[in-house]
């Protein structure tokens, strides 16, 4: 069991450090890093305080801590993916609006050039 918590701690640290490195290199925006960092810290905290995980598993009636880890990781990442999908949808809407606006502005500029006004 200890190995499992050690592995979880390591993976959480790798996740946190990777996101921080990407932030430093300006490859990810701060607002998009928040959910990843929060997810990483939740998993790290649970691996450092295994008692918490045990209590959580008991409360849910799960067979053991590994199942609780799986469930929590699933919840955390589903939340993150949902946020990402919303961000992608918003970006797509903005992209469509910008594309249409650019085409209309170009059309109007060309029309002005043609009429010489």
């Amino acid at each position, binding site marked *: 069991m200890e190995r499992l918590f050690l592995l979880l701690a390591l993976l959480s640290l790798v996740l946190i450090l990777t996101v921080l490195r990407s932030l430093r290199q300006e490859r990810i925006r701060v607002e998009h890093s928040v959910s990843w960092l929060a997810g990483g810290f939740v998993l790290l905290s649970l691996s450092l305080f295994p008692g918490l995980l045990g209590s959580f598993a008991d409360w849910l009636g799960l067979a053991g801590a590994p199942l609780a880890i799986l469930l929590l990781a699933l919840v955390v990442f589903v939340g993150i993916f949902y946020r990402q999908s919303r961000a992608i949808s918003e970006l797509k809407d903005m*992209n*469509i609006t910008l*594309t*249409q606006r*650019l*085409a*209309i502005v*170009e*059309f109007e500029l060309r*029309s002005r050039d043609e009429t010489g006004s």
Partner: protein
Amino acid sequence: MKPPRVLLLIPAYNEEAAIARVVGEAREVLGDFPVLVVDDCSRDATVAQAESAGARVLALPCHLGLGGCVQAGYKLAYELGFDEVVRIDGDGQHDPRDIPRLLETLHASDAEMVIGVRDPAQPGFQTSLIRRLGIAFFKLILRPILGRPASDPTSGFVAVSRRALHLFSRTFPLEYPEIEALVVLQRRRFHFEEVPCRMRPRLAGRSSITALKSVYYVVHVLLGVFVNILRRTRI
């Protein structure tokens, strides 16, 4: 009373083989009707062909899909002050000689949109079996939602009033827009009418909706229809 300013809108994507003939035929039938081709970032010579046939071209810098492409045309038409827009496909399936009948119906009725539908008495070109099944399915689904039958809800041959133009320039489905557009209209209590027309085979090219895509089409449009029903109307 001033006659309404009407624009003929033709969305096109990789239609270099057909677009010049479609524009030419429309200009021949309709005289000095302004014709706007909205090019959805074609990879072929659609823009050059359309311009050579006498159309103005609104060229999108990125491929948006049919809904985004048509909406760009509606936005431009609305901003330029057009009162009505007639939309036909860029592949030659719609006969421009039917356009005056669509506009007459638009003027004579209180409808915001008139759809050119396949005439059962002279069906002309028949679509694939899968598409006919899809149409039959959506006719069944739409009947209670619209409160009236829609005989050819996938038709892209439409005339819209300035009220509908205003609505569509703000909200218009992105992909496979025809069926969802009917629900968008219904949600605002707008009306539509139908005019039977003879459909023709494509002049060139093939439909982008393949057998496999038909399944995606049905799921996508079905979801879009119900999302439009659930969505709060903001206009």
